[in-house]
């Protein structure tokens, strides 16, 4: 008979019951296989010694640490709602970042009236690059007023692309060719529309600015108590996770964030926020450079972690983000009121190639 493979010999060391009887019998009487088995045993013992771990962790201490971390996340998301979650978590994912940022731009204000006027609707994405330390210093929306979440993020898994399309009304692009190393079928997640109402508070803003040892400029008339309605989604994602916390590939789409208000123009509100002395100047000046119409979604990028560049996906300008360590890349673009991102533990050329090769079914 044929000699069993090296893999079978290796398994014979660990799980002899997992090896076919015929193979076991063969090995017993075969000098070549016995020699192969001995070599496998030596290499296995060597690897075992090299990988040995000589301690046992403290489970109680570990649990306490995790429980605190989870509780910390809960507090942050309870106060802010997920789309406007803490900066730290936003920074972790450029894709997540998209959903949070409209809040800052919308966080300035206008008096609320019965009829809401759309003051912000993302039509393009522009990176705002700054050192991580400065981005972390950006205040939360709750530093300027109160956010009441009217529809929380609620994601759920659905069976397939058709179900994702049905749940969100968004078309699901087909990835024609997967990058090397990405295999299998994706799982699909959908999320409904998220929304909230933000009420601007001059007093809270003053306290925030004072805490940083500064004095806020006088607010424009009508800003105090003015309300903004923030919304984003629904959205969907096709995920090739292959068991990793960072998926191998994600293709995500969502209806872009919008901000509705009435009264004071968007620019007035935005300019006031950007004039506050506790904002890092580098970030504020980049935001000021956006055209005044309220159509640019800033994508906050930590300069140490990511590099950005421009690209073109099917004739639409796109932003490519690449982590400096080469571990991940993403490409993001907005078209027709929908933001689409292709991201993963891939190279920039690979995510671009996936993005450009997407096939749009109906």
């Amino acid at each position: 008979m044929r000699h069993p493979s090296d893999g079978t010999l290796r398994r014979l060391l660990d799980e002899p019951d997992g090896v076919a009887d015929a193979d076991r019998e063969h090995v017993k009487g075969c000098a070549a296989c016995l020699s192969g088995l001995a070599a496998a045993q030596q290499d296995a013992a060597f690897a075992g010694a090299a990988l040995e771990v000589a301690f046992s962790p403290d489970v109680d201490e570990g649990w306490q640490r995790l429980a605190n971390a989870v509780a910390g996340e809960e507090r942050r998301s309870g106060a802010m709602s997920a789309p406007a979650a803490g900066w730290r978590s936003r920074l972790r994912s450029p894709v997540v970042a998209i959903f949070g940022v409209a809040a800052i731009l919308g966080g300035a204000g206008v008096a609320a009236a019965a009829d809401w006027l759309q003051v912000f609707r993302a039509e393009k994405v522009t990176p705002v690059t700054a050192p991580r330390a400065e981005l972390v210093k950006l205040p939360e929306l709750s530093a300027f007023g109160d956010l009441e979440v009217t529809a929380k993020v609620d994601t759920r898994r659905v069976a397939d692309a058709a179900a994702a399309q049905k749940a969100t009304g968004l078309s699901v692009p087909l990835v024609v060719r997967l990058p090397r190393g990405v295999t299998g079928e994706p799982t699909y997640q959908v999320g409904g529309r998220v929304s909230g109402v933000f009420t601007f508070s001059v007093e809270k803003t003053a306290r925030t600015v004072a805490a940083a040892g500064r004095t806020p400029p006088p607010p424009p008339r009508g800003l105090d108590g003015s309300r903004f309605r923030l919304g984003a989604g629904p959205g969907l994602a096709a995920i090739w996770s292959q068991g990793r916390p960072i998926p191998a590939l994600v293709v995500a789409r969502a209806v872009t964030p919008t901000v509705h208000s009435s009264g004071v123009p968007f620019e007035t509100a935005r300019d006031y926020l950007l004039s506050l002395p506790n904002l890092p100047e580098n970030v504020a000046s980049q935001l000021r450079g956006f055209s005044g119409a309220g159509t640019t979604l800033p994508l906050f990028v930590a300069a140490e972690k990511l590099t950005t560049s421009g690209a073109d996906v099917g004739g639409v300008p796109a932003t490519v983000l690449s982590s400096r360590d080469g571990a991940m890349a993403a490409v993001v673009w907005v078209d027709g009121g929908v933001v689409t991102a292709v991201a993963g533990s891939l190279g920039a050329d690979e995510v671009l190639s996936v993005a450009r090769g997407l096939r749009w079914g109906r």
Partner: protein
Amino acid sequence: MSSPLGRGAVRSDLEQAFRTAYPRVVAVAARVLGSRDEAEDVAQEVFLTFARSSVPAGEAMGWLSVAAAHTALNHLRSGRRRALREEAADEGGAVCPDIADTVVTLDERRRVRAALARLPRRQAVALVLRHSGLSYAEVAAALDLSPGSVGTTVRRAESALRKELNRHASSE
């Protein structure tokens, strides 16, 4: 909606899963990183993701183990390693009673990490999981391999690891 495992509710079986799997998860990460502190950081990162995931309870151990291996290997790859002196302080005198031994141990760890970082990802994960006590069936499920090819993958990884370490030992 942007994250598969992202912002759902915290799963109710989190503590139970943690208490069952934490030692295994830390051990998997420690085999890659050679440092207790770093391994515990990786374990926290993995469980934090798991906390809001919808991974079925029956698959939790496999998922957590493979996530720990990938995350730890990512740490190697992205160079998010702590200073060697921290490792030295961390491991203390109990394991390595004198300085010469400590230096040798640290150097070996460094070489093991470098060798793991050079292995193909699937081989490195299979190797670490197998040496962390996962069965062939568990490694196969975690890596989407047939149980038959787990042996081949582990065998290749062990052979490559030994060659790498010997090559470096003889060239130094």
